[in-house]
């Protein structure tokens, strides 16, 4: 077996008295699509923020390709290749779609700040490569026709795609998607599922948090289930669907329960 690209080791996060993540451990293999599911407030987003270093851990650690990345500055973790998208539709709302994606190429830039200012040869070259790459990404995500639209005018589904486009521009090795299908209808979700598969086929390891069980079961290689901050199960979609504890955790949450069995 190939060594894991990401290892989560005994990760714990406390907000005051509230333990949002309690001693969570799991491994992620390169090229895998791994979903994190769980009821509202289970600690899924917190887990993603810990992995991308947007939050400091209380204890435990995250290893990326064997190297400890927890508690580094977020931009450094992004530079290493762990990039997150946001649960809320977080975008640069007054920029056009294409501008946002170009800006998001920052990690790949060869020029430094002075280079930008004086338009050095590197900066010029950056601009050209970023433009081309942005067009590629927009094409890939079906956003090309909206390239010159101001981001805040996009409909919900396209906003999510833009979030992913911004993530992809960073050339990530691991992409963390927080609820990429939220607010989408069935058809849009299925399109998005294909897109995420496409992202994986580009060689990116994908972790995603999602409430849409049908989509999760369809897309995931493996699933990690959280409840009240604890990992209660881990396995393939088939294993998770049969897991007693998981069913219990979702009891009383009918819509999710139905989702669990619809595929």
């Amino acid at each position, binding site marked *: 077996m190939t060594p894991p690209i990401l290892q989560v080791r005994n990760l714990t996060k406390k907000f005051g008295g509230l333990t949002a993540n309690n001693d969570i451990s799991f491994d992620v293999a390169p090229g895998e699509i791994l979903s994190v599911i769980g009821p509202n407030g289970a600690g899924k987003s917190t887990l993603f923020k810990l992995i*991308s270093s*947007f939050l400091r851990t209380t204890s435990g650690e995250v290893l990326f390709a064997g190297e400890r990345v927890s508690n580094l*500055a*977020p*931009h450094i973790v*992004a*530079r290493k290749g762990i*990039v*997150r*998208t*946001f649960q809320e539709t*977080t*975008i*640069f*709302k*007054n*920029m056009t779609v294409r*501008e*946002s994606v*170009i*800006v*998001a190429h*920052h*990690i790949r*830039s060869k*020029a430094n*700040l002075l280079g*930008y*200012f004086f*338009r050095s040869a590197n*900066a010029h070259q*950056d*601009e050209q490569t970023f433009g081309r790459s942005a067009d590629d990404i927009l094409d890939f995500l079906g956003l090309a026709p909206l390239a010159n639209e101001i981001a805040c005018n996009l409909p919900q589904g396209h906003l999510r795609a833009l979030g992913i486009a*911004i*993530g992809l*521009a*960073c050339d990530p090795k691991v992409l963390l998607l927080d609820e990429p299908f939220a607010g989408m209808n069935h058809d849009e979700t299925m399109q998005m599922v294909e897109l995420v598969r496409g992202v994986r086929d580009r060689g990116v390891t994908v972790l995603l948090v999602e409430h849409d069980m049908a989509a999760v079961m369809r897309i995931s290689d493996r699933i990690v289930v959280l409840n009240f901050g604890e990992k209660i199960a881990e396995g393939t979609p088939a294993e998770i669907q049969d897991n007693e504890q998981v069913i219990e955790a979702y009891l009383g949450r009918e819509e999710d329960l139905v989702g669990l069995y619809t595929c």
Partner: protein
Amino acid sequence: MNTKQIFSSLLFLLSILVLIPWFIATSGRWDLYYTLTSVALLAIASAGVWLTFYIGRINIGQGAFALLGGYITAILITKAHFSFWIALPLSGIGAALISVLIGLPILRLRGVYFAMITLVLTEVGRLSALALPITNGAKGISNIPLPGKVSLFGIPIIPDFATLENPRIGFYFLAVCLMILCFAVVFRLVHSRLGHLCRSMQQNEELTASIGVNIAYIRIIIYALCSFMGGIGGSIFAVMSQSIYPSSFQVADSINFMLNCFLGGLGYVFGPMLGTVVLYFGWDLLFQTGKYQMLIYSSLLILCMLILPNGLLSLRLPGRKNS
């Protein structure tokens, strides 16, 4: 830059470097030089404040750095006998260095918290100037000599201001040239990738960090640049009025720097310049209204901000965006 921009820049340069001096010479209104120099210096400091707006911070602390720049110049010239031409850049650099120290902790704050801290900073600047032995307390530092001459390889480039028939002309050209330089730098910055990063930060700092940008570093750079401009503005001001006092730059000045940006337009590089001109002369024009001056002035300002929330420059024909 497109041809239209080049044309309007040339027209602008022509008017401030040739037409205005010509008008003053023919009309004999020499006092205008002092006024216009002040406007140029305030515009320089406002350009810095505008830059901090550009990364999404409301800065009401520029007065402190203008004061700091003024004192550095005054002290270097009167106590250490530096030439003004050395003291000027040193004042900018000094202000920038101090702003890095102050900025490291406070630039994490956003919104009204940052605004309040910077406001306090202005007051701290004034109180320090009152208290420190080197600044000579409330008496301030006066009798600062005029800038001396500068020559390169024996060829005089800048004449001794004291020998000028009217030193105000010298200050006018100095301030105006520096103003042009500052706005050119800001313009270039805004239209470079660095400007795009600043805009990203203004719109969402977390997202900007998530794409691998060291936002803390860029914030510090921009704040230092802002304070540098405050510092050199204050430096020239001190030498022009040949004195500096703790009250030379106060909270009201800090607020004015910010208002200049608001009024001119936060989305336009040249907003702070226009804002400074309008605010400065607007206040003067209302002088005749006597005791109602403040009332009318504030009402007009409020009206402006309600009707033109994006600043005076948004009045331009639609179809031309951010320049």
